[in-house]
């Protein structure tokens, strides 16, 4: 049954304040509120606002993680204020005081309110965010596989809160990166069988230097998302659709780089750095390493390589000499490849279909996951195989 009823306790909130009209820099403001431990940080802020200071700025409405208004950073982690319990927030704080700041990667307008139009919504508009209908439009509904609608419902579940955008590392480095939220939105159309422009969408997102190959797989967006949309997984699915299904070889070498990466691991069991760049440009053959584009890229990378050598991060022998696992181990790596590549269709992680990450076989029937890097997802143990 529900958690036993707990008495209200005192919690101190340290809220980042910024008043654009004051001419002053942002500052910290502390308030102590009293609420039950399972109440949300948002409720704490609202109590502080109701009792002590009505000028604390935060967007909020539903209080139930569905309207997407109250994206903030709590103790440095992005998320919804309404979706974070006070006791958990306190436990994750540095000094027992719950720190609430505005989201990152977006300009702050006032206190906890950021300018989502300037970043988030602009990027959403970048991906042609509407269905381009497959013709002819039927008189009744489009007849489509049941699974396909459940599949895109995972990205439909995005509430546009901006938590993933807030902490996207690629966007920090490249502010033009289309980013996790907008690319998840793009999947919602690229994965929708009623859309007529799958190829154009994927081609566009592959060719854009700030597109799907600009993601660095840091997983931050997956951690940040309060709705299980797993934006990075959607970006990886866009890549697989673009490269594998539509054969789109992009001018950013994103697709060739992936092939180079996975084929090196398949053949050697380990990554061989000196081969990665030539193969990414020229392909898998011996002569590919003399591809002029690879040479130019190699030359432009020299300063970074030199630094890495000086600091001892790589050794010349280690980088240049092919290194491989023992033969027995390579055999095992290969058998994993064979198993995954031998499937009739790709397995994709989708919470609406597979249940919880940690869920047992019951929820995972029909469409188990082979998405890499998802802790707790162990497709090998699924009896549905």
């Amino acid at each position, binding site marked *: 049954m529900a958690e036993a009823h707990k008495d209200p306790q005192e919690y101190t909130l340290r809220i980042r304040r910024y008043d654009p009209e004051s001419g002053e820099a942002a500052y910290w403001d502390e308030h102590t509120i009293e609420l039950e431990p399972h109440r949300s940080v948002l409720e704490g802020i609202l109590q502080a606002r109701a009792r002590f200071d009505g000028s604390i700025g935060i967007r909020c409405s539903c209080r139930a993680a569905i309207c997407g208004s109250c994206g903030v950073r709590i103790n440095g982690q992005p998320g919804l204020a309404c979706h974070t319990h006070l006791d958990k927030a306190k436990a994750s704080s540095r000094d027992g005081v719950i720190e609430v700041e505005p989201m990152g990667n977006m300009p702050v*307008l006032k206190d906890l309110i950021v300018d989502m139009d300037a970043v988030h919504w602009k990027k959403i508009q970048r991906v042609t965010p*509407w*269905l381009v209908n497959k013709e002819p439009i039927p008189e*009744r*509904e489009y007849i489509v596989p049941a699974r396909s609608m459940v599949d895109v419902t995972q990205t439909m579940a*995005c509430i546009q809160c901006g938590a993933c955008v807030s902490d996207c590392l690629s966007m920090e480095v490249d502010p033009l990166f289309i980013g996790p939220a907008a690319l998840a939105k793009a999947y919602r159309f690229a994965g*929708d069988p009623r859309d007529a422009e799958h190829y154009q969408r994927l081609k566009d997102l592959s060719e854009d230097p700030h597109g799907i190959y600009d993601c660095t797989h840091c997983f931050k967006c997956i951690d940040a998302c309060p709705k299980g949309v797993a934006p990075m997984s959607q970006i990886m699915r866009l890549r697989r659709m673009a490269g594998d299904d539509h054969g789109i070889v992009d001018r950013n070498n994103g697709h060739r780089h992936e092939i180079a990466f996975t084929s090196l691991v398949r053949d050697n069991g380990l990554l061989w750095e000196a081969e990665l760049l030539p193969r990414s440009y020229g392909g898998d053959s011996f002569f590919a390493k003399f591809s002029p584009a690879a040479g130019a890229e190699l030359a432009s990378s020299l300063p970074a390589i030199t630094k890495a050598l000086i600091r001892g991060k790589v050794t010349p022998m280690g980088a240049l000499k092919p290194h491989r696992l023992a033969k027995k181990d390579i055999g095992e790596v290969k058998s994993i490849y064979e198993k995954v590549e031998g499937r009739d269709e790709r397995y994709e992680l989708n919470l609406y279909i597979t249940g919880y990450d940690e869920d047992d076989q019951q929820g995972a029937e029909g469409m188990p996951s082979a998405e890499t890097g998802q802790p707790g997802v162990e497709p090998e143990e699924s009896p549905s195989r």
Partner: protein
Amino acid sequence: MPQHDVLIIGAGLAGQRAALAAADAGATVAIMSKVHPVRSHSVAAAGGINAAINPADDWRSHAYDTVKGSDFLGDQDAIEVMCSEAPDEVMHLEHIGVTFHRNEKGEMDLRAFGGASMKRTAYVADITGQAMLHVLYEQLLKYHESVERYEEWFTTSLIQDGDGACVGCVARDIRTGQMEVFAAKNVILASGGAGQCFKPTTNGLIVTGDGMAQAYRIGAPLMDMEMVQYHPTTLVENGFLITEGARGEGAHLLNAAGERFMEKMAPNKMELASRDVVSRAEQIEINEGRGVGPEGAGIYLDITVVPKKRTLEALREIVNIGKDFAGVDITAEPILIRPGQHYYMGGVKTDVNGATPIDGLYAAGEVACVSVHGGNRLGANSLLDTLIFGRRSGEHAAARAGDMSMPSIGDEQLREDARWIDGIIARDKGGRRISEIKEELGTTMNRHVAVFRDADGLAKAHEVVKRLKEEAKTAYIDDRGTVFNQDVLGAIELGYMLDVAESTVVAAIERTESRGAQYRTDFPERNDEEWLKHIDINANGDDTPHVSYSPVTITQWQPEERKY
């Protein structure tokens, strides 16, 4: 001064649908909202949308269920319009991209819902409102050249010309605090309900009755205001909504003895009787000591009888809500619920085109009262209402704009509103805090204007509301700034809520019978002879509500005893 053929205030489902329809009809359109459109409370609608799309179904059956659900207070001409146009509207939504759940043949799947004689609720898991709202917003982005968007603009007043027609509004850009006059040949109010008059409520903090009060203040009548829906399944913890889809999928309601008590009140429909009936049954169990949980103040909703895979796929949002907000795994154990304020059946009185009695002013969605819901709305009819009457008002307003010239208006109202707002900001700290008044209003309404009502309680509520209206005049705020001054908007919203709450209480006192959501313990029977009529509330000019009546339109279904 911005000028538009059609200006829509509110950007939830009704407003966005109206904007797209008006743009399709060739009008110049703007849509204004105090929040970003996808934050609108339509986003929280969970279970689905009703339409007779199954070839074995008939819109007349849907209409009859709706009439019966309304306890015969719904206007049958309007209900016929809504239900007969429903299938095309839902297909349109499918075509623009809503990811409706499919059956194994790839057709749209339908789930059971309360008060319906067959499965006719199309759905997207239990995020139907969210899916629809976000898809409509996708369309607004597509229509970016034909629909102007004013996001995070707060309407302070509607403007009338010398003949009383509505010709625009005054609004404040929340970001900058700048005030602006908008001229419009037609204004469509689509700003939602007024759930924040109650505490707890399933409604978001933004649902503060703005449109109802704005229309009321310029003389538009509010109709059926006593009809406030208490949803049968809201979390005891905090009032959050647990979708009716749970019961649609087969979940049970259990009292302390583990009995499915709905047997007593609705032996045929059981948990899927209409919402007023289920909420009353629950409240009786609680009042008579058969409730569960702390102080016996709740009822068990047992979703474990639904297959787990189905729950994870089709009820995923409430799996999350149970886990995150009540610490309950609903696939493994029952969850504690009770009736909670959810929906205003009443609102600004309109005809079937969304037109109010004030020229140039339309209303659609929860802010309006057509009246298709009468005394009690069926689950999954609200999304339908927003779309049908949003579209119709958009089309009608665009057509009306065709042969009109742009009204010319001055800035008198703007200056008055600016003075009003500056006055609030400048108030000294002598009075009460806005938040205290709001809290007292919410708890009072929830205590006396809830599932069961009587003359004494309603009189008490009336006294409190009148006092709070006075206190609100001197209530103070803390924020003296202009950029995102949410504090001053809160003070204006409180005024809107008090107007709406007062009309609710006055109408509930007036109706001395029990019908739909209005159950008077001192008048426990339905009384068709005297009360088969709507109560209209008008502003009286002296800040008190004036009561009048209007007839219920009956086309083909005569009132009969209501049994489930």
